[in-house]
């Protein structure tokens, strides 16, 4: 009996030792509280022979409220909505923590924030001067589209185009692979040209309209914005997203953001509609309708 128990114990210990030996290298290092992607991960290949980025993805960061460090904050009208519409706290996704604004540009960012809830569309020329474009349901531009609290889908086939379809206001962008032609003119989602650098999809984005913002904190850019995005599969369920942002009119130097994108894993997951135009019409156009007393 005693012997049998000893043998059983030895057997369990042996199995444990084998498991310990089989653990990846990182498991042998000092235990860390921070999860890390295995640098040895090799992504499944798509039909084009490159890493397969197909799927529905979503960021978990709160950068849409503020790219930089931010406290939890009340919504715009807490007297009406209580905790609804309030913003979560979050850590900066900017490398080094701070966006390197030129002094005057920093003042503009602050005034953007102060005026983020104001709109005035009575004059075509000043139509875009006030208010966060997100509040007005405008296409968010890049990189903001990637860290809004909505999913997006990548459709990567064999043609020289990769489709990025966003749930927010049904915005789309077409990534043209190895494309020569420059942006014919500026657009809300910009002109995206892609290439593979090893296993990383690199997307060069130019031709963005100057009116988009980076977040609800008023962070902004000019029409000289140049974004270089890098999408690297980090596990079957994660893409590491990095973007370098350059705009000599607004920033003293290029700066970088990074965060993981998470694969949406619900069995029945699909991109739904967030057509927000009707949610904005009263805000934008309500002051031009026939006065209520004489209307229908």
């Amino acid at each position, binding site marked *: 009996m005693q012997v049998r128990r000893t043998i059983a114990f030895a057997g369990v210990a042996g199995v444990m030792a084998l498991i310990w030996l089989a653990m990846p290298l990182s498991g042998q290092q000092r235990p860390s509280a921070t999860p890390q992607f295995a640098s040895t991960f090799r992504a499944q290949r798509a039909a084009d022979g490159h890493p397969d980025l197909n799927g529905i993805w979503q960021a978990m960061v709160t950068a849409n409220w503020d790219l930089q460090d931010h406290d939890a904050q009340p919504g715009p009208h807490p007297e009406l909505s209580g905790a609804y519409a309030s913003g979560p706290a979050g850590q900066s996704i900017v490398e080094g923590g701070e966006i390197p604004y030129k002094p005057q540009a920093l003042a503009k960012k602050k005034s953007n924030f102060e005026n983020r809830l104001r709109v005035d*569309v009575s004059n075509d020329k000043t139509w875009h001067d006030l208010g966060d474009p997100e509040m007005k349901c405008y*296409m968010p531009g890049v990189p903001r589209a990637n860290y809004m609290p909505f999913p997006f889908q990548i459709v990567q*086939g064999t043609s020289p185009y990769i489709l990025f*379809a966003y749930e927010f206001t049904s915005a789309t962008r*077409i990534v043209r692979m190895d494309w020569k032609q420059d942006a014919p003119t500026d657009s809300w989602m910009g002109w995206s040209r892609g290439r593979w650098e090893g296993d990383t999809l690199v997307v060069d984005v130019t031709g963005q309209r100057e009116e988009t913002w980076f977040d609800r904190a008023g962070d902004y850019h000019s029409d000289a914005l140049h974004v270089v995005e890098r999408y690297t599969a980090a596990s079957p369920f994660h893409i590491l997203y990095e973007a370098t942002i350059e705009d000599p009119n607004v920033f003293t130097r290029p700066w970088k953001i990074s965060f993981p994108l998470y694969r949406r894993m619900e069995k029945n997951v699909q991109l739904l509609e967030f057509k927000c135009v009707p949610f904005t019409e009263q805000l934008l156009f309500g002051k031009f309708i026939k006065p209520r007393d004489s*209307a229908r």
Partner: protein
Amino acid sequence: MRNRVRSSIAVLAAVLAVGLFVPAAGQAPKKYVAPKTPWGDPDLQGVWNDATSTPLQRPSNVGTGVLNDEEAEEFQKSLAHDLSRDRRDGGNAADVNRAYNEHWMDARRLKITADKRTSLIVDPADGRIPPLVQASPERQKIQAARAAGAQRFAAGLPDHYTDMSWPVRCVVRTDVPPYLPTIYNNDFQIFQSPGYVAIGPEMIHSARIIPVDGRPHLNKGLRQWLGDTRGHWEGSTLVVETTNFRADEGVLFQNANPATFTITERFTRVAADSINYEFTVADPSTWTKPWTALIPWTKIDPAEQMYEYACHEDNFDIVHFLTGARLREKNGETVGQQRPAPAGGER
């Protein structure tokens, strides 16, 4: 016996002849085999254009079915004349409307389909939308309210932004199925990946992502402007069913009733540069019977790219229409005084 064999052969020959010269809706000519994607689906990827001058419904002054070369040329010429916005006959009011001239339009919309049909509708055989059924009193009331709003808008006197159509309000445009040719932005880009076909209509920048993996539709509790789409392959044809449309009035073609409307679309690549797009719509509370149209899609030169169609972001018109109406009211104008319809309502 001999006669019967002979007549059978004659019938067979006739059937073959018809099959050769009149491509049946949604059916590829025998010889063409659509290329396949590496994962085995028929390959529909590319940028396609559906513009044509062939009207949805057959005009009363043309013969049925397919025209000969001479008739086709005459038909095309007459349609192009009617559609052209570079004409200067018809007086000042017509001229003002035509200021939105051919420069802005899709020139492909001045040519009839290559198969020389006189209507895009292939069923019923008369090429016409079946007669409307009488709407229920409740729907008549809703439709009358919408019509009154449309009339105020057409008179330049909209009370409210809701007097304008969904396309004018930039909520949906030609991305609502069925896809019908219009004056511009007739491009559609098709993307595919294993388990999906995605169609990007240029207007308005939405993507219709179609699962082709056999999953069920959304539950009935979730409805969308563009509905919920599922696809499957029947041979080389992509068959697409769309359900779960929102209840909003005036989104679907001819104000069909979202509660009873059904649509099936079929995409068949019939040549390297051509897709047959065929749709069948039914709605027992709108049309007396289902009807089917066939619209050829032509592959366009990759140098001619799809481009972003923004709409709401710079929808200055909506403010102009409303502020203009407020000024006209001040001047004592009323809806009874008809003026030319404002440009911009493409549908």
